Each structure stands twice: as C-alpha cells, then as structure tokens.
C-alpha cells in the first residue's frame, strides 16, 4: 500500500513538471485533470477502513476534478479560440527547471519535518509544498486568464495533498464545501474569460491593467 502511495505521489510530482513545461493550454488542462484524478484516489488508499461517505466524497472529487472542471475549461478554451500560451513571463523550459529545483529543495528541506501522525507518508509534505509552488509559478508567470486558473487549480491540489495529513480528522462537509467552492470559482472564471475575450478580443490579463474611459 505504501509503495502504491509513493508511486502516486511521484506521478503527481511528474505531472507538475509537465504542466509547467507544456505550452498548449488544452494539454495543461488534461494534465491538471489527471492530477485531480490521482488526488481523488489518494484518500482511498490512506484510510484504514473505508466508509461509504468517504468513497462518495472521493468519487465526487474525482468526477469534479477529472471531468467537470476540465470540461468547463475546455469549453471556455474552445469559445476563446486560442491554443497556446504565447509568451509567458518565464519561458517554458526555464519554468520547468525552476519547478525541478523547487522539487529538489522541498525534498531537501522538508524531509526533516516528520509528519508525526502518519508513518506511511514521508512524501506528503514535500509533494504538497512542491505542488503549491508549481501552481504559484503557473499563476505568476502566465498571462492568459485560463492558464492562471490552471495555476490556481494546481495550487489547490497542493493544499489538498497537505490536508491528507489530517485525512481522518476533516469532516466530510468541509471537503464537499471546498469542492463546491472550487467548482463555482472555475465556473465564474470561465464566464469571465468569455467576457474578457469578447471585450478585448484577447485573453491577455495584462490588458486589464489599464483603465479606459
């Protein structure tokens, strides 16, 4: 079980790097969706004994993060008729390398932090920190609104991994509430994206900086 968990964490880390290194927004949407599905599987493996509500919340998380949210974003992308992030602030390859350095750093620094509650999860803290930082890099260095939403989703994934440390303690209601918030925010941003696109005929958020009379 521990081995499967560790393999999943490593796959999540790899997906981070590929999300940072990919210029096509549709591919990044797919990568983030895959990461969401992996995250939904994690709590199933970590619980000692499964109860019905836990399976239900996991299924809800998988279907939301793996199907619904990517579907909404893919539709927004199709409406905007745009394929790739043209010129990010930091190039694709440099941001991948920064992501890998961050991964290495997180592993060096946070391996000292011992998750006292669980012995089987030495990778949780470094993985979550790395995922949060990868999301942060995506958020800050990309200019297209949809890429920034993807960064936000990756960041949220990282926080979700951190919350797995408390997997026995977080009530179901809280998890469902977070998922609902996420869905609503992605929904709203997709609508906003559509409006930005219609008003400026571009999704570049830099254009939103200047006021117009």
């Amino acid at each position, binding site marked *: 079980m*521990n*081995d*499967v968990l*560790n*393999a999943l*964490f*490593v*796959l999540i*880390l*790899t997906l981070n*790097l*590929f999300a940072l*290194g990919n210029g096509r927004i549709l591919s990044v949407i797919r990568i983030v969706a895959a990461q969401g599905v992996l995250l939904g599987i994690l709590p199933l493996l970590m619980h000692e004994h499964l109860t019905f509500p836990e399976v239900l919340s996991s299924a809800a998380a998988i279907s939301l993060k793996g199907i619904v949210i990517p579907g909404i974003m893919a539709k927004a992308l199709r409406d905007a008729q745009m394929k790739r992030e043209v010129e990010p602030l930091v190039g*694709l*390859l440099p941001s*991948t*390398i920064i992501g*890998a350095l961050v*991964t*290495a750093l997180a*592993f*060096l620094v946070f*391996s000292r932090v011992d998750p006292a509650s669980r012995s089987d999860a*030495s*990778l949780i803290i470094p993985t979550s920190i790395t995922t949060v930082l990868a999301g942060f890099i995506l958020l800050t260095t990309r200019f297209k609104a949809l890429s920034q939403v993807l960064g936000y989703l990756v960041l949220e994934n990282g926080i979700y991994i951190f919350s797995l440390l408390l997997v026995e303690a977080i009530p179901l209601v809280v998890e469902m509430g977070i998922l609902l918030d996420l869905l609503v925010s992605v929904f709203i941003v997709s609508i906003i994206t559509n409006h930005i696109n219609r008003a400026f005929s571009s999704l570049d958020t830099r254009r939103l900086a200047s006021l117009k009379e």
Partner: protein
Amino acid sequence: MTDIVVHLALLLVFPPLLLGVINKTKARWAGRVGAPFFQPYYDILKLLRKGMVLSTTTTWVFRAAPIITLSSVLAAGVLVPFGNSPAPVAFTGDFLLFAYLFGLARFFTTSAALDTGSAFEGMGAAREVTFAALTEPAMFFAFLVLAKLSGSLSLGGMLHSGGASAYPAGSVAPLVLTVLGLFIVLLAENSRIPVDDPATHLELTMIHEVMVLDHSGPLFGIIEYSSALKLFVMGSVLLGVATPWFSWNGWLDWPVFISGMLGLAVVVGTIESIMARLRMPRVPSLLIAAILLCGSAFVMLVR
C-alpha cells in the same frame, strides 16, 4: 552454460522482431494490416545480398563505422542481464563500459556521416551529438539511482539478476521516476517518435536516418540490424528496472522476459501512433525532463 547460450541466441536473433512488432502495432492503430512480423529480417537479408555504392570522397572511416557500431552494441548486449539470469560478462563498473560502448558507436556513426562531406549528413550528425549530450546525464543519474538502491556497481547487481533480493522498501518512488526517465532516453537514443521519426526521410525532422543516407547494401543492412540491437539492449535495461519483482526460477524466466520485451515494443508502437513528433527546438526540453526525472529520483534517495 545454457543460460549463456540462450542469452547470446536471443541477442543475435530476437532484435529485428521488436521492430516488426512496433511496425505491426502502428499499422493496427492506423487500421492497416501491416507488414508481417518478420519483415525486418527479410529487409536485412535483402540488403545483405545487394551490391554497394561507395562515394569517392569517403575513406575507411565510412566503411568501418557500421562494423564498429555493430560490434560495440553487441558487446554492450553481452554486459546486460536479460530477465533473471546473469549477464555472460559482469564486473564492477561495467555500467560505465556499457554507456560508453554506445558512445563509441555514436562517435563512429557521426564520423562516417561527416566523412561523406555532405552538409546534409553533417546536420544530422550535429543533431545526434547534441541530443546525445542530453541523454547521457539522464542515463547516468538512472545508473546512480540503481547503484545506490542495490549497493552494487555492476549491471547484474543493479538490475537484480541471478536471484538477488528485491530492492529495499521505500524504493518505489525513485524507481518510478527512473523508469519514466529511462523510457524517454530509450525513445531518444533509438530515434523513435517524439524525438525522431524512423519512417521518414524529410530533411527537417530526421536525425538518425539522415546520417546513414549514404550507406547502401550490406553496410546499410548492418546499420539496420545494429539499430534493432540497440533498441533491444536498452529495452532490456529498462525492463530490468521496471520489473524488479519477477524472480521465477528456471526456464520460465525466458518466456516472461520475451513477452516483456514484446510488451515494451507494443508500448513504443502505441506511443508512436498517438503522439506527433516534437518540433526540433522542443526536443531538448523533453530530454531535460528526462534528466530532471532521473536527477530528482537521485535527490530523493540521498536526502
């Protein structure tokens, strides 16, 4: 003794079948029937019976290169354990020899390409060495990970052949990373699709095919055979890393190993069918990703 005989027989006979399986998989994905599984054997035999055209500008390097490539790849194949039985030749540090036998093969292939004096082939040689410079660190990080995990400096020990115990607990995470990285290295080194297209002669895209453009007849047959051999040898290393758990005894190992290799060929063929070749400037990113994967596996181990 029988193990050594089977090892050598597999090494000599089996590789072109891998190419056949890859081509068949691609054909099936495209909805075609495809060439028979044994087509690469027929192709190589046909080439060996043909005459040869040698450019007057070429020297002995051009003629020696395919033979040196073939012999160094064969030597590398002797160092690798296939499946669970030990390699015929094993000594401490043989992974260095393994890596640089491929380096020697590459040096002579590129030299032969430059020897023709064609700008076209020079371009291919430049690309080949550029990408090789990026796959080599990934490969060595992978070997470092395996050496650290197994505590052995020989390929046999690293890949746990000969009934050695399995990897220590908690090693799955770095192993997954290493397998991913090594798979990218395998695709790049054997000029498979995300990096190079083995089927096309379009000058914008090709790396390996352009270098061997002037070779013909038996020399070209040898080149084809040794590239199949290279795929087989590197595939067996990857298989050894990816399946550390299979440890049956006796003759059952060989069918398991062979079906594993065929499975790998199907995976490669599937990737070739569902992916487009990367643009040339994007290839280094993929290879750097391989370095990063193997490198972070190492960081995870030594932290």
